[in-house]
């Protein structure tokens, strides 16, 4: 089960940042791959051979017997291809750059700037 949406009212989209599917029980690899494919941060792919591959998972092909994912590593090298059969788990270890707060931040900064401009004007009327 994926985590509940964050409680911040300014950010309506839930983020999977920090989620380890293994914490919730047996890992459903195709389901976790879909979530990782939609995730815009880096992930750590735990292979069945015991390796942890860190990078950005940008593609998956779930159809057919040769289902695979493609990723760029954390240096940007790649693409590397990995079959579903080699994936044990995918952890959402990287920051989520799509958490969606830049517009909120901009509005907040703008409101603060306007308040700062208003303050001296009010003072001058006193």
């Amino acid at each position, binding site marked *: 089960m994926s985590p509940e949406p964050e409680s911040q009212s300014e950010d*309506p*989209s839930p983020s999977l940042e920090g989620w380890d599917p293994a914490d919730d029980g047996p890992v459903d690899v195709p389901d976790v791959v879909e979530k990782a*494919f*939609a995730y*815009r*941060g*880096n992930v750590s792919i735990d292979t069945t051979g015991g390796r942890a591959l860190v*990078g*950005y998972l*940008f*593609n*998956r*092909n779930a159809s057919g017997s040769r289902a695979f994912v*493609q990723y*760029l*590593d*954390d*240096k*940007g090298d790649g*693409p590397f291809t990995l079959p579903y059969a080699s994936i044990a788990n995918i952890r959402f270890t*990287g*920051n989520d*750059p*799509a958490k*969606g*707060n*830049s*517009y*909120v931040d*901009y509005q907040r900064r703008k409101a603060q700037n306007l308040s700062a401009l208003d303050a001296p004007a009010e003072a001058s009327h006193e």
Partner: protein
Amino acid sequence: MAVPASQAWTVATYVLKQRLFRRKRYPLVLMLEPLLRCNLACAGCGKIQYPVQVLRKNMSVAQALAAVDECGAPMVSIPGGEPLLYPHISELVDELVKRKKYVYVCTNAVLLKQKLEAGLFTPSKYLSFSVHMDGLREEHDESVCRDGVYDAATDGIREALRRGFRVTTNTTLFDNVEPLRVREFFDEMMDIGVEGMMVSPGYSYEKAPDQTHFLGREKTRELFGKILGNKKKHWRFNQSPLFLQFLVGKQELECTPWGNPLYTLFGWQKPCYLLQDGYAASFSELMMGTDWDAYGHASGNPACQDCMVHSGYEPTAVAETFGSWRGLKDTVVSTVTGKV
């Protein structure tokens, strides 16, 4: 008519050739993203939210040109990210112009004046700067989440025009705009002297920071009806009259997701410029391996229901113009009368 006759002729002959060869699906504009990083973080944009190592990547010019050659579309649009941050933009544009492709560099123009002064580009009928402008100063700076960008962009536009470049604008509208202010903005762009304007409703990007202002279909028609219903004669649009009629609800068009295919750092994006359902390794794999019936308004795909974006519907409008007498007649009437 905002599109030069030579470009209109190239597009017309290309479309007619596709029809002659009975090609059901063909590309019209290749969207080429050689990088994904940007110097802005706009509220309605879901294109740039990636890890640092992805944002630092640049496509090689050879890779970009191979995609252009494989696709074969007569027009190439270079968005991103911000294409003026691409270190090989000058070489890429030169190569595309040599291939007689009509190139649109889709820029926010923050760096345009600086790059022009550095001599990166040479004026050509094949090269246009398509400048992202979402409204007058207040609305545009709000849209791009940074004050001062409108002034920088208009400085860049004026410099480009002064140097003899083709300049168009590209405007994305959301449900928080005032129709009268948009009309004033169109007047302003015409006064500045741009060749033509492109306008489109924004797409509901899942990853965009601002999720509250995307338009539904009915709202889109209502808004564009107010903006374009009494279109001023001096407004010039760099897009098909049928697409504008579609926006105001006078045409029923279906999406052509393969019309503006996207080649990006990850490959050929399935199925279109806006949706990310995966990537194909080649253009032919994209065309042959995508279940096109699963996309577009008629498919019932929820991701397509509110979309009326030009990247999906402008190719349909162009195909309709050259594919039916009614389409041709509506286009001619609209062009001659200046009415949408």
